[in-house]
């Protein structure tokens, strides 16, 4: 039998960028145009195979509005990965994304895997954030980056597969995600990317 690993993942990003929609697409393969704004956070799980392990994602989808930021530590505390979402049709949301990355680096768990999702790529006519900007930025912080569409189910699976691959296998990393909040200087974990 395959080993099951539980991975806590949180979704961060500006309000209305489609965090909940991405989770909904990933977990239920369903898209709802009028999905309610998230208050506080919501929780879902999904299990996917990865190599010889089963990864059970415990997904915390957070609220995007600025004033809910103060709650975010509750959710990213102990996370193995964070998906930071922006809306390719909104420059503002890319700006908010950068703030989130900064916060994670300051207060987030060590070794947290960061994945950047440029959502609503189905609306490329309205694009405000060039793909190049996101790529460059992701590279600079050592994060995965994909453009997704929750609506058209583009790159959603891939996003989480990417995260799965980034998670170090069990044996080599036994006490990695212990939930400690890193308050000190950031170390250079990001360079250990394998792909």
């Amino acid at each position: 039998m395959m080993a099951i690993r539980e991975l806590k993942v949180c979704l961060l990003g500006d309000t209305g960028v489609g965090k909940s929609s991405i989770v909904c697409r990933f977990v239920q393969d369903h898209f709802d145009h009028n999905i309610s704004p998230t208050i506080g956070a919501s929780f879902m799980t999904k299990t996917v195979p990865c190599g010889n392990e089963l990864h059970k994602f415990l997904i915390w989808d957070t609220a995007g509005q600025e004033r809910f930021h103060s709650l975010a530590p509750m959710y990213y505390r102990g996370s193995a990965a964070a998906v930071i979402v922006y809306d390719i049709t909104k420059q503002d949301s890319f700006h908010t994304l950068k703030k989130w990355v900064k916060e994670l680096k300051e207060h987030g768990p060590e070794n947290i895997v960061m994945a950047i999702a440029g959502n609503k790529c189905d609306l490329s006519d309205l694009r405000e954030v060039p793909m190049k900007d996101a790529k460059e930025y992701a590279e600079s912080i050592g994060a995965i980056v994909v453009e997704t569409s929750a609506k058209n189910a583009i790159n959603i699976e891939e996003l989480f597969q990417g995260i799965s691959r980034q998670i170090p296998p069990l044996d080599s990393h036994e006490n990695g995600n212990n939930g400690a909040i890193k308050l000190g200087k950031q170390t250079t974990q990001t360079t250990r990317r394998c792909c």
Partner: protein
Amino acid sequence: MEDRFIIGSAKERAVSSPQRDLGNAQLNPSREEPRKKLCGYLNKLGVKGPIKAWKSRWFFYDENKCHLLYCRTAQDVNPLGSIDLSSAGFDCKVDADEGVFEIRTPSRVFILKAFSKQAMMYWLQQLQMKRWAFCNTQTGLPVDSVTAAALPANESLLNETIHTEGEGFLPPVKTPTDVVGLKAASLPAPQLSDALQNISLKHPWTEIQNTIYNICGTRQHPGNGRSISGAECPGTFSSLPFVACIPAWHREIIVQQPCQLLKETGFSGPAATSFRAGAVLPVVVCCDDHSMSPQELVKLLHKALEAAQQEKRASSMYLTAAEDRDRLELVRHKVRQIVELSSRVEALETDKQELEQSVALRDRRVEELQEHVQLLMDKNQAKQQVILKLTEQIAQDLSEPVQEADAVAADTLYKQQEEIEHLKDDLDAYRTQNQFLNSEIHQVTKLWRSVAEKEKVLLMKCARLQARSCQVESKYLMMLRRLQEASPDLARGEAELVKSLIQEALQWDAKEEAVEALQLNPVREYDDYGFMTIPKYEAEDWKLLAKIQALEIKSNNLLSHTAVEKPLGERWAGMAELSPSAELKGLIRCGIPVEHRQRVWKWIVTRRLSHHHAANHYESLLRQCERTEHPASRQIELDLPRTLTNNRHFTSPTSQLVPKLRRVLLAFSWQNPAIGYCQGLNRLAAIALLVLEEEESAFWCLVHIVENLMPADYYSNTLIASQVDQRVFKDFLSEKLPRLTAHFEQHRIDVSLITFNWFLVAFVDSLVSDILLRVWDAFLYEGTKVIFRYALAIFKYNEEEILQIHDSLEVYQYLRFFTHMIGDGRKLMSIAFNDMNPFPMKVLQNRRATHREELEAELSELERIKAQYVKEQAEQVAWHLDGAVSEEEEEM
């Protein structure tokens, strides 16, 4: 109808005079059945037949079925038809002819005519009584004691006895003994112009059967017929159908000489029968019969003599025949003769039968003709009377030619008098009709009420059964869900089985709906406020949950609707003026009925806001919105289409409420710039709009919640008060539910991840709509304590189930859904307000204060660390800029 009066006189004589004679001489009044039987002759208007005409019918009431049956005469065996009284209404119309009344059944209207107004009233009253008596005996419903006890008022209603009948609307009508009751059966069917008319064209077969029965019955068993004729009519002739047709003058003779009549009419009793038998022995019997004429006797004796002589001749021949052979021949000859004779006898027998039949037909014909003759004679008599009258009048006119001058005045006077008479008649008629209709309305209302009560009892029972079945079904589905979750651990075959069972269960509803033609308690798609009653989950594995949820809610609704909500509604209805009191608080906690909710909410809100409730405040805020765009408006716009997505008033593209919601939220962002807009306020405002409808009221409701009920800073920038409340809540949880808290600690569950938004939006989108609104009723009236109470109650409600789960992930999974699964609002309410006591406000306030201090200290510490970090970073950058190689570059 013109000849009704003409017949009248003849009929009267026919009916009254012999009746008196018979009544004294032959009817024994003490032999009347203990319960008066309702029967008698009425005329019935043929409706469906080719000819619309009155037909005389013998009506009698069948107690067992509550049917009024009718046949042509009282002696007929097979009724021509029946009227179901149990579901019938009765009516009489003023403008109809005298004695005409109606029986209306759901399928048909019977128009009947009694022979007088009194008789009609008698019939109507009797019919009402019969209907009432029947409906009251039908109470033997399979209603169990619980339900019956729940409806004490109903019981007393059902037990109202029959003697309350009438209630003074209609004085009891005296029985018109000459036209109704069993005695009437012995009387002739009242006459109509043509007796043939009475024959039912619709029921030819029944008619023939009845006729034959009557004829046979009178011939063979005189005085031993059916109970009606037998018990009440000694004398053969009264049961003879044709007697009715015999003119009255003839009848006088009949009464005097019954025996003679019997012979005259050919219905001779035993004498004739024995005569036809033709055997020797009966001759003696014949001789005994004193009614035989001597000639006939002589003839008979002659015949007998002849036969004897012939026989003697034959036997002497036999004796004289010498040889055996001859004798044999003789015997053979005799045998042949016997055979021949017996075949002849047979032939004669059939001949006889045919003849009998033709005699029967003739009899009928004679009958009809007699009727006809009677009719003609009646007419003739009437005409003669008219002629007589006219002659008299002419004579009078001729004798008084002088008075012609006065004639005109007298004429008008006479006319007026006549008119007055008419009016009086009309008045009288209307009065009786009114009386009758009053009693009819009264009774029908009573009947309707008792039936409605019965129906309610049944519906209640049905609801309870349905609820039970829902509960069982939901338990089953719950089991399936458990199995489904465990399916990775199951053997392949078992997993398959579970899967197929789930598929099957999900399809139940569709099937049931198709089969059940009548849905007693249909689950509506949307509730009173437009919330979807059954959540629509697209994902397969959630469908089961949705189903379970819907079933739970349905069963609880079914139960609470029948049992509790009605008395509460009555108490609310009695509360016209609202004023704060312990009683009101209690009532509000139980949930305000839908029809009172708006009024009460409005009262609560205005009461608390009266000091700054300026008349045009809202208007001026709206104007400000138009002038300048609030920074929050972008966020508001983003959230508008995402508000209450399970409510049809908000999701429909033509929604009236979305623009209202926009204005309310924008106005609020100016009303309270410190908050502006916080996600979640949209839900609060949306609920307020749904209930209060008016946008200004909704706005004030929102203000009431944010500024009066919630502590300061609940929705402002850092949501600090909300975070404080989470800590306070954890304290209460550990105090009120220590086992559960230990369980959560053991599995490292942070409940505030789940409960945070309960508090922020007061359970909107977490609880099922009708429980939600109940919570809000109390919340608006009492404040945030209600939210704490309910939050604790929600955990308590599900405590045992949560304790069963020993995997942190599964606990979270469960907590995500469990608020939606709560269906029993009353149970939850009772936990919140009883089990969670005591809950002093002081404790809440103290805890809020201490936690707030702590949290603020923590936050400032965090700020300090942040600032330090930023400073360090800056220093690092400065150091990098100084030319040092970055760590990344080093590793590359």
